[in-house]
């Protein structure tokens, strides 16, 4: 033990003496490691995003050369109730759906990490919605929600004497119905990432806690949760981004209806760009979305614990 301490002291003095060169050397390596991916993304995503931002100030229709419009597109958006409705729907979906699905997937990951019999089967089952094509998922949920007497939910409700509900055909029930599907669909991926992250937690932490007589609950909140923080930040941010980019499900399930009650921002962007051919306006919508997401990301960084994440 004592030699260990000495080693550390020498080590830290050496390090202090060599600091400038080491940092410099590290810095070069850091850039080198990050460069290929950064250049790739700058080229194939960054540049198109830049072009999109420029196009958001034009009337580009993809078929003819764009003309500069100034802030007209943004003024149009500010006065478009459907755009605000879509943004609002996204916020509702995010606020309701994300916490629930994160909690469920965390709980499932912990349960499925216990080496129960049939673990592999359970894990695969939970992951299945993620690998099932959205078209197929939409079709079965359309059946589950079917408002006539033949829908699964209405059969079950009928058993308890509840009259038929319209679900996706009702402007007030459609959004909650969609949120339930997004939660169900998103659990598998989050569960898997949590599961992978649980693998990385040093077992000795738990053993040390055992010596201190910590209960399972204490260990969960004092060790597991803090160790999962970086991945929780990832899951939170990607859930928010994914939520605000929900498209396939809406497209296949409701087409934004009835009466725009389930329209979301990406669906509006798609409609504006490829159904109405107003690419300029669609890119302006995307820029607003980008700003919203940047703000939300900064916010999630706060709530998942400071800048060290």
């Amino acid at each position, binding site marked *: 033990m004592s030699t260990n301490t000495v080693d550390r002291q020498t080590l830290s003095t050496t390090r202090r003496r060599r600091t400038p060169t080491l940092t410099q050397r590290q810095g070069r390596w850091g850039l080198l490691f990050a460069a290929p991916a950064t*250049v790739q993304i700058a080229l194939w995503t960054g*540049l198109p995003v830049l072009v999109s931002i420029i196009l958001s100030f034009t009337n580009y229709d993809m078929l003819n050369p764009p003309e500069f419009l100034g802030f007209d597109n943004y003024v149009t958006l500010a006065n478009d109730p459907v755009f605000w409705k879509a943004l609002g729907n996204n916020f509702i979906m995010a606020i309701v759906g994300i916490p629930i699905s994160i909690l469920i997937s965390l709980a499932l990951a912990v349960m499925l990490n216990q080496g129960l019999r049939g673990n592999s089967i359970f894990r695969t089952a939970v992951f299945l919605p993620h690998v099932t094509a959205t078209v197929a998922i939409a079709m079965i949920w359309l059946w589950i929600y079917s408002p006539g007497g033949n829908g699964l939910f209405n059969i079950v409700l009928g058993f308890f004497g509840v009259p038929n509900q319209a679900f996706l055909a009702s402007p007030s029930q459609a959004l909650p119905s969609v949120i339930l599907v997004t939660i169900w669909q998103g659990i598998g991926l989050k569960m898997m990432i949590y599961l992978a992250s649980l693998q990385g937690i040093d077992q000795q932490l738990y053993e040390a806690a055992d010596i201190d007589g910590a209960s399972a609950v204490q260990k969960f909140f004092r060790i597991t949760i803090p160790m999962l923080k970086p991945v929780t930040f990832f899951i939170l941010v990607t859930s928010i981004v994914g939520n605000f980019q929900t498209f396939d499900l809406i497209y296949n399930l409701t087409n934004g209806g009835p009466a725009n009650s389930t329209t979301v921002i990406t669906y509006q962007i798609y409609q504006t760009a490829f159904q109405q051919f107003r690419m300029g306006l669609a890119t302006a919508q995307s820029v607003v979305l980008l700003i919203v997401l940047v703000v939300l990301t900064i916010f999630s960084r706060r709530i998942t614990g400071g800048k060290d994440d």
Partner: protein
Amino acid sequence: MTLRRRDFLAASGVSISALALAACSGGGSGGGGNGGGGGGEISILTPEFAGTTGKAAFEGGILDGFFEGSEFTYKVDYTDWTKLNEKLSTSVAGGLVADMIMPGAGWVEPFAHKGVLTELPESLLDGLPVNENLLAQCRYEGTLHALPFFVDGRICIYNREMFDAAGIADIPTNLDDLREALKEVTPDGGVGIDLFSSNIRQTWSHLLGCFGGRLFNDDGTEVTFTDGTGVAALQYMLDLVADGTANFDIKGAEGQPRPWQQGQAAVDLLNSSLWPSFTEQSPDMVTEDAMGMFLLPSAEAGGDPVMWTGGTLLTMSARSANPEKVQELMSYMLEAGPLLTAVTESGKVPARTDIEDPVVTDNLMAQYTIDNFDYATAFEGGSPAWMEIRGLVAPELEAAVTGQKTAQQAIDALAAASQDALSRV
């Protein structure tokens, strides 16, 4: 560090200049570059003929026959119906647009207006047995821009057993009679007529026609459904819902049978192109004995019925380097033989009226559609702003059907949004 930055700048510089060029030229340079007299490649963009059998029918059965011995070759780009717009707009933006494009009704005016599609000589119609009613959706500003290939007719099919049980022997000839008849034939827990499995926008515009209305004026610069016909059409839908003979909740979603197939609806307002699906899914219900057909009648007693029509069209890119060859190909595809090959593969309704093959005559819905071409009217399109307007229609109609708005409010909102779109054209 400096090296990296230079690399990056160089890379982005090249790309930005390329993009700038692209944006400025609008892809004007044109793709392929094989123009001129001595041969070349004819490219075709089609949402039809998907899959192995479709490809065999289109290429082996039609195109090979046309291109054999010619200096030209062909290349077919098969795309998904739902992604036709994406495919079309990216290829136009990139200057790689196909010589021949096969869009649906409603595409012609907007794309002709934007200069993507070009005019076709009227001489292509010479001797072609095609009903004049089918050409309305092919014209832009009075000139021919497309040829009809397949036709979709929106017809009503009814369950004879239900009609007989209700004692309805005569098919209603006006909308009021239809409304009364539907009250008689509505089965328990079902609907008299299924108005909502088909696209609600198309159902409304169909009824609009029954009330004698049109979406746009002749040159497509103003909406005309504000003359009361639009409200009347929507109110008729609301009345049926109030009667309990139509129900927004009872409709066939993807992956589920339509209510009519399950005996939950006495009448189904559907597209004639569903025939192949119905014969496979519910063969016993679509026999001549079990199923009858009629067109949505006029609102006025004694008026003509109305058949809503859409279809697949043949159009030519304005940038095609070989317009004559493309027009020849169009004419060839509309000859009886090649068209029959196409119809055999797709089960759709041919635009020609003279195809007397069992493929057509045994297809009850197709034959009925052909027999009623005199009542055919195209309601999709009619204005260069149609692409912008069509997405606005369904939400307003749904708001009315689900009780959030009155018919008048919904149509007023739709009219205002449509005028806004028209003002930008």
